[in-house]
């Protein structure tokens, strides 16, 4: 059966994308995982891969054309299939979308006059206390009917809701299941700031994740040789830092940051590495890693990590990096999605 190939959001904030290049023509067949086209998002150019197989029956948005997320950019299916129904549907749909948009505009207009009403209708009203309890107990408040004025959810409603479900969090209820008591650990200022900074980074800096597998055999081999020669251990992190430093020197675009309207390509290569502490995380910086030999990097690193673990780092030792490495490999982690370490991160 013929299907629409829809534009998908290839960045968290993408609303529209431009087809930079089609890798397939009408009539071409493709396999699961093939890259069908390249899409320029609001951030970068991404590859569009489809985890299905089939034949491209019709390309709707040509190269250079734009499509909103959810719009059909092509039709695929089995070779020779009739897809005229889909074409009609797409055309109607596009009209509807236009009408829809108009309606939305209208609504916006209406809302201007009727802000308060709209506000009341769309949000769930809940007392601060009830909201806090719901959050603590991970209760979905959209399922609770509020008994307060205007349907406000109040403490009582949350308690009653739990009772209905047979799980009570209230101490005086008789249906308490025998579970250990929750432990509440107050957030340290450090953790609070880490949390605030990283969530800010996660929400405001567009994150996208690319994964490649690299054969590290040669490095491992060399590391062994050097270690034997020196009778001391050079960490894998030192190699990583050195490798990345060299790479950054070569690809300056990556050794950069966005500063308001400008992109700053750093002249220096200062590589931070995330080090866990009992009460948080810190990112000591190996300065000018591109200019240092592997032994120097290792020495710097060892000292920094040591000081980090003893909470002895000075602020200038853990701020103003140009690139940060988070490595969980030693914990047996194959792959994870780190958060960009914002500039001047304090902890």
């Amino acid at each position, binding site marked *: 059966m013929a299907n629409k190939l829809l534009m998908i959001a290839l960045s968290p904030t993408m609303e529209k994308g431009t087809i930079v290049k089609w890798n397939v023509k009408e009539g071409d067949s493709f396999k699961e995982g093939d890259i069908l086209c390249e899409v320029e998002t609001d951030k970068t150019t991404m590859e569009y891969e489809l985890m299905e197989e089939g034949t491209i029956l019709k390309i709707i948005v040509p190269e250079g054309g734009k499509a909103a997320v959810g719009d059909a950019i092509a039709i695929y299916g089995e070779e020779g299939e009739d897809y005229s129904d889909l074409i009609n549907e797409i055309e109607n749909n596009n009209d509807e979308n236009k009408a829809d948009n108009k309606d939305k505009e209208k609504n916006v207009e209406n809302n201007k006059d009727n802000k308060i009403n709209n506000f009341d209708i769309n949000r769930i009203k809940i007392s*601060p206390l009830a909201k806090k309890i719901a959050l603590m107990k991970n209760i979905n408040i959209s399922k609770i009917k509020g008994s*307060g004025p205007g349907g406000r959810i109040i403490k009582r409603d949350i308690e009653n809701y739990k009772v209905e479900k047979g799980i009570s969090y209230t101490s005086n209820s008789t249906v308490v299941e025998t579970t250990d008591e929750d432990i509440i650990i107050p957030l340290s200022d450090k953790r609070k700031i880490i949390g605030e900074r990283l969530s800010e980074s996660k929400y405001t800096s567009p994150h996208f994740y690319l994964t490649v597998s690299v054969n590290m055999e040669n490095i491992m081999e060399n590391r062994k040789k050097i270690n034997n020669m020196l009778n001391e251990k050079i960490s894998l992190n030192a190699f990583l830092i050195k490798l990345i430093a060299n790479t950054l020197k070569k690809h300056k675009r990556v050794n950069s940051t966005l500063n308001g309207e400008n992109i700053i390509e750093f002249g220096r290569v200062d590589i931070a590495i995330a080090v866990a502490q009992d009460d948080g995380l810190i990112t000591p910086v190996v300065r000018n890693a591109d200019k240092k030999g592997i032994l120097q990097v290792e020495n710097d690193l060892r000292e920094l990590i040591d000081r980090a673990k003893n909470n002895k780092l000075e602020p200038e030792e853990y701020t103003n990096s140009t690139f940060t490495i988070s490595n969980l490999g030693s914990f047996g982690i194959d792959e994870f999605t780190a958060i960009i370490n914002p500039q001047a991160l304090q902890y």
Partner: protein
Amino acid sequence: MAGLRPIVEFMTFNFALQAFDQIVNNAAKMRYMSGGQFKMPIVFRGPNGPAEYLSSQHSQATQTFFAHVPGLKVITPATPYDAKGLLKTAIRDDNPVIFLEGEMMYSWEGEVPEEEYIIEFGKADIKNEGNDVTIITYSKPLKVVMESVTLLEKEGINAEVVDLRSIRPLDEETIIKSVMKTNRCVIVDESWPFVSVASHVGWLISNKAFDYLDAPVELVTSEDVPLPYNHKLELAAQPSVEKIINAVKKVLYI
């Protein structure tokens, strides 16, 4: 300022408005304007708040006027015991203190020890302990609040009564702790509602105990009108047991 420690008695604080300039522009400002050179150890005391049948000019609760002014301390006892302990502190204080005595309170009786004691400023007093709702008040309305508490107890509602005793300085800690415990608050204040002690305390709670509130803070104040002469009307204009109980039930959603 020059070395005396005067105590000014106003016949009523309604007449203190004629001395407003001296209190606000002089007493409250001298220390600050002189870069800390002068002390102003002066107490202004006298009856405040509505009595009965006196119409608008003689029935004003003036605390808000004074509490607004940095440099003044404003003290509002509600019992004879508190009045003695606080007045001693007021006289010993090196700052100008407005000491407000509810005009209707002069006939109230209560135990007062003969011996010397003082009550620190800025310490609220829990006049009744409870878990269901916090009622914050000060000065004369404490009486109607306590009457309301007795009636509420009969309905199984245990109200905690916080008597501020001192408006400036304000005991924020006791207020917030109580609200964190009960999650609900009614503020009873015999002055007008607009930019009042009650509205300030209400803001304080929304600011510092926001996540502990299960209901918006309710205010029971005088109606937003000058006090009339007619007795029925003037009673209707002031906080009453009925209004307090209604407000308590509102924050309890019953």
